[in-house]
């Protein structure tokens, strides 16, 4: 009985389907007070705050301003230090005299319920002495620009440079060079559950108990402890069900400190639930980058080099170092052989919401620019899009493949395993590529405008340094798995139960997976960057091996045989050559715990059946993917209809393909949003124009095509189960593949999509500016 790899329905589902979830806003504690936060209405201003009227209201319990905060909790610490951004500007927990983006927290109003708290917030008067806002990242880098932070010249937070080979020489020898200016605009995570925090100073336990929606509860525990001047052990962070993460819940926010601080000050439970209006203007965004890149190719279309620079809009503060632009920089070569590569990036402060990873995290940009350059080269050199990729993809025999520069984690960037040519061929088959190309060549000029796009990508997944897993066999013979990585919907309780059940040959429902409590295991990093499945999953496997060794040793002593004569079978340890003889897991636990007052039977083993295992990967494992889309463009309305969409992924060995299918589909839906809909828009004064779901649009059932998913597995050599992360592969290539398909459908001189997202109206304007249709032969 192997559960690993099975499409196991999820252990999580029953409670969620019956309305018995335990989400943050479902928590109710006696005496709990509610917070509403007054947020900046200006992008850049000196402020004066008058809270007298609010404090005078009978319905307001307290109003907390910057001056009320303890010195240890005035500024958010740098929770994710990174040497590439050595001197980050971190946000004040509450704005103190100056604001730097619309939505920045100014003060907190505490009341008996949220309605009253919002009434109180209405009574707070904020006077703004506004100053010109810094929004445009190119203008921000000029000497004439005002400064977001007066001590950061040119608004430049940091510069990144990556290089390998001799790029200038490669360009000197080039047969053909394509160059382009390619831009991506910011979007947001927009999980259906907004952020929220409940904090309670538990005076009986002398402990600050914090429930939140964190992807990184251990990071939050450390930051909260420091802010409250408590030992880490006196802070407990709990996550119940979390309604989606998508990266932006993986960071630390000012509220993560503010709410526990208020709970400590007032000695009452405090709840803050971010509402959607707050979320849209105050939860971290991602994606705005401007890239100016060029690609050199030889006469056959083989890539000789890529070079250029890009600008990254960092927003007003630094939530997570330079991780997004760094991920773009290292991911530009993708699964292609790029022998010579030089890229530079300026990271720029602006008066906008701080920027942090959102599902995809810099990689959609990297994939977009690389694939757009390839598409441009293919068109200019009259090489078929598939052929051009076949020519340039890293051949399977070249793995492990070293790129020649340092990766995000400080190691020499090396793709551990992969076979992207096989992904490409499978994806092309799924859309009947050859036949479609033939049809396309024969199609009448006034017929439907059908085009095909292809994009391939890599994703660094399963990064270190470690995850820890506690495992115990219970008195009833069931197994408990305890871990530090919380779930935001990824089905960890199911996938990890599959791994553990296999190890002991017990049914799926005999494994209980527990997470979301910093007291279950001592150490953890968190659930982000497609790492929990790989790293925690491997730690589950490691803990299970230790647990098996322990149980086998114990059983061997009980049965007076050798461990290699024993095996696990159906909840028992039995003799391999006579499976009717053995000892059940229950009996092992019972014996291992002995009787109160009596000596243990097998003292040398120590008590109980409980172990702690961990896994520390040597470096990232690389997932790869290839998406191919067929679209039809209505030249009158400029609406795009996705006729066919194929996604072929290499996530290594899959614990549960049902779950990975879900990851791919959800990723693609976000990617479609990133292509057509999801755009955070600021005006020149830094006012955010997309402040409701009427203006910030996401893909719906009507916008999502049916997707054909398939997998080609090259197991990772970097972990015992051969797994790779699956969390972001669906999202990364979508804007690239759809842009390519639209270009191909339209086939006009001078028309090339260079910006995402774009609306039907944008497409209309671009078409109006472009020349006549290209001849059919050129793709």
């Amino acid at each position: 009985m192997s559960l690993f790899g099975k499409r196991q329905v999820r252990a999580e589902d029953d409670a969620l389907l019956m309305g018995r979830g335990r989400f943050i806003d479902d928590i109710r504690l006696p005496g709990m007070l509610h917070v509403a936060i007054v947020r900046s209405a200006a992008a850049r201003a000196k402020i004066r705050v008058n809270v007298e009227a609010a404090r005078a209201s009978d319905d307001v319990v307290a109003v907390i301003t910057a001056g009320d905060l303890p010195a240890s909790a005035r500024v958010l610490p740098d929770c994710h230090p990174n040497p590439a951004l050595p001197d980050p500007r971190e946000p004040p927990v509450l704005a103190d005299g100056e604001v730097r983006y619309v939505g920045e927290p100014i003060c907190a109003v505490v009341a008996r319920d949220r309605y009253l708290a919002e009434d109180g917030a209405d009574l707070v008067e904020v006077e703004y002495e506004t100053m010109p806002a810094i929004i445009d990242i190119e203008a921000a880098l000029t000497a004439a620009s005002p400064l977001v932070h007066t001590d950061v010249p040119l608004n430049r937070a940091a510069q990144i440079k990556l290089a390998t080979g001799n790029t200038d020489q490669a360009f000197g020898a080039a047969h053909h060079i394509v160059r382009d200016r390619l831009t991506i605009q910011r979007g947001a995570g927009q999980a259906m559950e907004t952020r929220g925090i409940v904090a309670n100073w538990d005076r009986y336990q002398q402990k600050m108990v914090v429930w939140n929606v964190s992807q990184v509860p251990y990071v939050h525990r450390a930051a909260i402890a420091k802010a409250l001047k408590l030992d880490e052990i006196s802070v407990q962070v709990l996550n119940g069900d979390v309604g989606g993460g998508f990266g932006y819940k993986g960071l630390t926010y000012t509220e993560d400190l503010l709410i526990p601080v208020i709970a400590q000050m007032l000695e009452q439970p405090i709840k803050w639930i971010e509402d959607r209006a707050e979320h849209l203007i105050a939860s971290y965004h991602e994606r705005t980058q401007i890239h100016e890149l060029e690609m050199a190719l030889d006469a056959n279309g083989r890539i000789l080099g890529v070079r250029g620079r890009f600008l990254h809009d960092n927003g007003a503060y630094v939530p997570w170092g330079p991780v997004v632009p760094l991920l773009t920089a290292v991911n530009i070569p993708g699964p292609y052989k790029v022998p010579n590569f030089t890229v530079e990036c300026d990271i720029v402060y602006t008066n906008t919401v701080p920027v942090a990873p959102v599902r995809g995290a810099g990689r959609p940009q990297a994939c977009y620019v690389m694939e757009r350059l390839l598409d441009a080269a293919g068109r200019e050199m009259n090489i078929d899009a598939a052929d051009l990729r076949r020519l340039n993809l890293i051949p399977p025999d070249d793995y492990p493949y070293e790129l020649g520069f340092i990766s995000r984690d400080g190691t020499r960037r090396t793709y551990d395993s992969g076979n992207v040519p096989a992904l490409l061929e499978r994806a092309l088959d799924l859309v009947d590529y050859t036949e479609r190309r033939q049809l396309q060549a024969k199609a009448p000029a006034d017929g439907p405008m059908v085009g095909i796009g292809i994009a391939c990508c890599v994703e660094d997944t399963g990064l270190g340094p470690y995850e820890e897993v506690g495992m115990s066999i219970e008195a009833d013979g069931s197994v408990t798995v305890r871990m530090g990585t919380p779930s935001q919907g990824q089905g960890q309780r199911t996938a990890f139960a599959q791994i553990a059940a296999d190890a002991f040959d017990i049914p799926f429902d005999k494994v209980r997976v527990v997470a979301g409590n910093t007291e279950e295991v001592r150490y953890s990093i968190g659930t982000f960057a497609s790492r929990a499945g790989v790293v925690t999953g491997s730690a589950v496997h490691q803990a299970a091996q230790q647990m098996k060794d322990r149980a086998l040793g114990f059983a061997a002593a009980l049965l007076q045989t050798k461990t290699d004569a024993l095996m696990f079978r159906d909840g028992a340890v039995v003799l391999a050559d006579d499976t009717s003889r053995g000892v059940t897991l229950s009996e092992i636990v019972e014996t291992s715990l002995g009787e109160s007052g009596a000596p243990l039977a097998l003292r040398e083993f120590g008590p109980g059946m409980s172990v702690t295992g961990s896994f520390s990967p040597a470096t990232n494992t690389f997932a790869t993917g290839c998406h191919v889309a067929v679209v039809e463009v209505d030249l009158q309305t400029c609406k795009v209809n996705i006729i066919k969409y194929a996604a072929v992924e290499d996530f290594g060995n899959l614990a549960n393909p049902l779950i990975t299918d879900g990851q791919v589909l959800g990723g693609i839906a976000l990617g479609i949003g990133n292509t057509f809909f999801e755009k955070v828009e600021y005006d020149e004064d830094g006012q955010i124009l997309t402040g409701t779901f009427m203006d910030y649009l996401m893909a719906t059932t009507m916008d999502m095509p049916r997707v054909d998913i398939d997998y080609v597995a090259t197991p990772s050599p970097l972990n015992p189960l051969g797994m790779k992360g699956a969390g972001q592969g669906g999202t990364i290539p979508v804007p690239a593949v759809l842009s390519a398909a639209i270009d191909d459908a339209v086939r006009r001189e001078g028309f090339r999509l260079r910006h995402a997202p774009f609306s039907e109206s944008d497409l209309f304007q671009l078409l109006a500016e472009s020349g006549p249709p290209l001849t059919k032969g050129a793709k």
Partner: protein
Amino acid sequence: MKPPPFEYAAPETIEEISALLAEYGDEARIIAGGQSLMPLLALRVVRPTVLIDIGRVSALDGWRQENGILRVGANLRQQDLLEDEDLKSALPLCAEAAPQIGHPATRSRGTIIGSICHADPAAELPVCALALGALMTVRSADGERQIAAADFFDGALSTAVSDEEFVPEVHIPLPDVLTGFAFCELSRRHGDFALVGVGCSASLDTDKRIVTARVGIGGVDDTPLCFDLDSAAKEQISDGQSVGDVAESIASQLDPGTDLHATSDYRRAMAALLIDRALQTAVSRASEG
């Protein structure tokens, strides 16, 4: 996003509504289905002293036909346009527009008159009201008056209804056999407000020549707009010439704004396209009887 405090009144007669409006004036807001008002309350951009819930005034329920006029009460829901077969055949234009008004869970509460009175320039039903030549009954404690749809909308989210008045009923002329209708819309996503929405009605004489043709357009100005085809245009279409020229000519008079969702040029071009489609369809439906 919690509504600000307000008093709540649930009158049971039209007279009580009028009396409350006379008392509170601009400090009162009417709520029927609430599908447009509730978001504004949640965002606290609307802060009424008193909310007058007309949902329990049974005199405002339902619809009836009388002397060639369809009388729609203020509590009639948008969903009825999809479910009530008699209403569908009496109001084919609104029935065609209905699937594009929000979603099932908003249409089930949202009212026809509520949407018209909310006066979103990109909403479907105000366009229909214009294309159908609807008359809005407007009532206050002092009495009743009627405002033609063409005079009803005076700005974005603004109508000719004064603070002391409300709209208990809309009168829509019932179509005859030789009248055809069509509604065409483009929106960012299904159920969103229109980028451009066009409703057309066309009436023919027994020789199947156009007697009247009217085009309502939403999404292209601060209010929905209405155009009656001039005799030249009617002749041209009746003679079987291209509707496209007529559509282009109307579209060329439009000056749509550019916003987050579409440019002015796009909206104008789509208006031409949709007017063409809707007019053609309305005329052909009219001639099919």
